[in-house]
């Protein structure tokens, strides 16, 4: 285990060191101490290393992550795992707004609650929130899966494209073009896999699926004449 004191060595040294790990590095386990809510911790990683951040983080922790597993032993500020490509990010506490924004791949697990706009513009990422999500979550979500084990706030899935949304609790309201959809066997399989991988104690049958009505996909033009 490599211990990195962020306060003592600084952000540039941290990211430079972690980004410098190649695919075959044998220094695969890292622990970051004295994070103290710093922004842009462990961003742009490219190797299959395991990074644990002790304490809470500021904006954009694990931004654009690829291959690495980043654990936040605290809560995460806005934009955790934004634009993630692959790998995994696990937040032990809560996540602020825009968690997993525009993510293309990988798995984001939030063990507490996620604030507004969780999964905004998601493009293939899988997000599992063990608590609740705030308003406008999955806004313009393009693809991937958002699993909410608690409740969802207002305007869930507004202007959604082809992402799958699964909510176990209540939904305060659905956004434009987002509707409740049939839960078919393939969706139960997706849920089962995500529940298992994220360590959630839940059954797929407890969830309701939401997705796009596809009524906003094309302009409404009167061609009747």
């Amino acid at each position, binding site marked *: 285990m490599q211990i990195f004191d962020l306060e003592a060595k600084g*952000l*540039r040294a941290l*990211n*430079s060191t972690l*980004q410098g790990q190649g695919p075959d590095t044998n220094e695969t386990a890292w622990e970051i101490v004295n994070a103290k809510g710093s*922004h*842009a911790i462990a*961003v*742009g990683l*490219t190797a299959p290393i395991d990074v644990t951040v002790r304490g809470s983080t*500021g*904006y*954009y922790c694990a*931004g*654009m992550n*690829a291959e690495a597993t980043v654990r936040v032993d605290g809560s995460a500020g*806005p*934009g955790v795992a*934004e*634009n993630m*490509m692959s790998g995994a990010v696990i937040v032990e506490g809560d996540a602020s707004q*825009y968690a997993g*924004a*525009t993510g*293309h791949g990988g798995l984001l697990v939030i063990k507490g609650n996620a604030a507004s*706009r969780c999964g*905004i*513009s998601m*493009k*293939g990422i899988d997000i599992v929130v063990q608590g609740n999500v705030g308003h406008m979550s999955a*806004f*313009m979500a*393009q*693809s991937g899966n958002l699993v909410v084990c608690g409740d969802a706030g207002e305007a869930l899935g507004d202007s959604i*494209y*082809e992402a799958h949304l699964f909510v176990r609790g209540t939904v305060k309201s659905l956004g434009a073009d987002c509707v409740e959809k049939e839960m078919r066997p393939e969706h139960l399989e997706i849920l089962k896999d995500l529940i298992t991988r994220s360590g959630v104690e839940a059954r797929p049958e407890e969830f309701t699926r939401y997705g796009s009505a596809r009524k906003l*996909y*094309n*302009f*409404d*033009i*009167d*061609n009747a*004449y």
Partner: protein
Amino acid sequence: MAEDEKHSIPRTVPIQSATFTPAVNAEIRRAAATGIYDIRGGGAKRKVPHFDDLLFLGASVSRYPLEGYRERCDTNVVLGTRYAKKPIELDIPITIAGMSFGSLSGPAKEALGRGASAAGTSTTTGDGGMTEEERGHSTKLVYQYLPSRYGMNPVDLRRADAIEVVVGQGAKPGGGGMLLGQKISDRVAEMRNLPKGIDQRSACRHPDWTGPDDLEIKILELREITAWEKPIYVKIGGSRPYFDTTLAVKAGADVVVLDGMQGGTAATQDVFIEHVGQPILACIREAVRALEDLNMHREVQLIVSGGIRSGADTAKALALGADAVSIGTAALIAIGDNDPKWEAEYQKLGTTAGAYDDWHEGADPAGISTQYPELAARLDPVEAGRHLRNYLKVMTLEAQTLARACGKNHVHNLEPEDLVALTLEAAAMAKVPLSGTDWYPGKPGTGF
């Protein structure tokens, strides 16, 4: 026989309304028939105060000119000197503006890369990610970071020579991107992670930051991902240039890109293009004032765009304080857009060469704003790239000619004092004297 005819009483001649013009009436009828607003490409077509309303004074007894064809007049520019480890060094102060693959064909993007590289300047991606055509043929490529984040990934981010955070653009400040179903081909759909054939409307603001304080942190993240090597540009539409430039600098921009309302777009509502934002002439001095107030003029570089057509426009923009200009529409025309040789096909589309702006429909006879392979194949990227190189060369020679006439050995030495304005409006916007006077509206100390 009617009494009027017998006595030949004169009748009033038909008079067309200056308010309800034929074009206005046609648009009312089109709207009534379809129920959808007009969507088109390009920039503002209305007449607005522009660089044509400015003149250079040239040298005289009080100023000493440089020999037009012999004496040195440099044109190089370095962008990103504030923080980036690897600033971009260009031979000419004219860059190619951001235009997406999707809105443009692959050959068109290749042609832009070829022409820009041959001329010693940069080109820019757009709302759709980076293609091999443009990376492979652009020696210097600026990668746009847009609200949609289509195709955004850290590999391409690191392959770029600079990063341009797009907050807005001149054609539609406050508006998001638009790409209609006809142009969402298999390749475009895959790059953008969207269903094929949908009318794609992307977000107008970024998904993970909302103000200048957030933007500062976002820029920090981008720098950390790219090892502080890349210049970070912030592109803004010409709406509130003083405050937007101030906030972009505060957020840590290396370069501010300022786009006036004449700047083109691939597609948006006509009402947006013609009624939102300001002409670039009204924006430059305000942006420069912001930089000067922050003691950042020349340390943070200013690129301006929106209706730049010639070396004269370039020289005037530089004289007003810009470090470089950027061209989009002009570059497309140089590689063949709206060429009269396709007139017969423009007629079939209900338009004419020079007026074709239905870029969103993808039926461009010139093979530029299309995703149909048979149309795209019409554009020879090598030949089109040569045309762009030649055009950039002419623009540069023109700017040098004007700079030498004003006695400057670098185009950046041009200054507002070299200019006068032909109209009150241009004088007020450019803050240079009305021709024949030493005054402009709002000049400090004049009382009005």
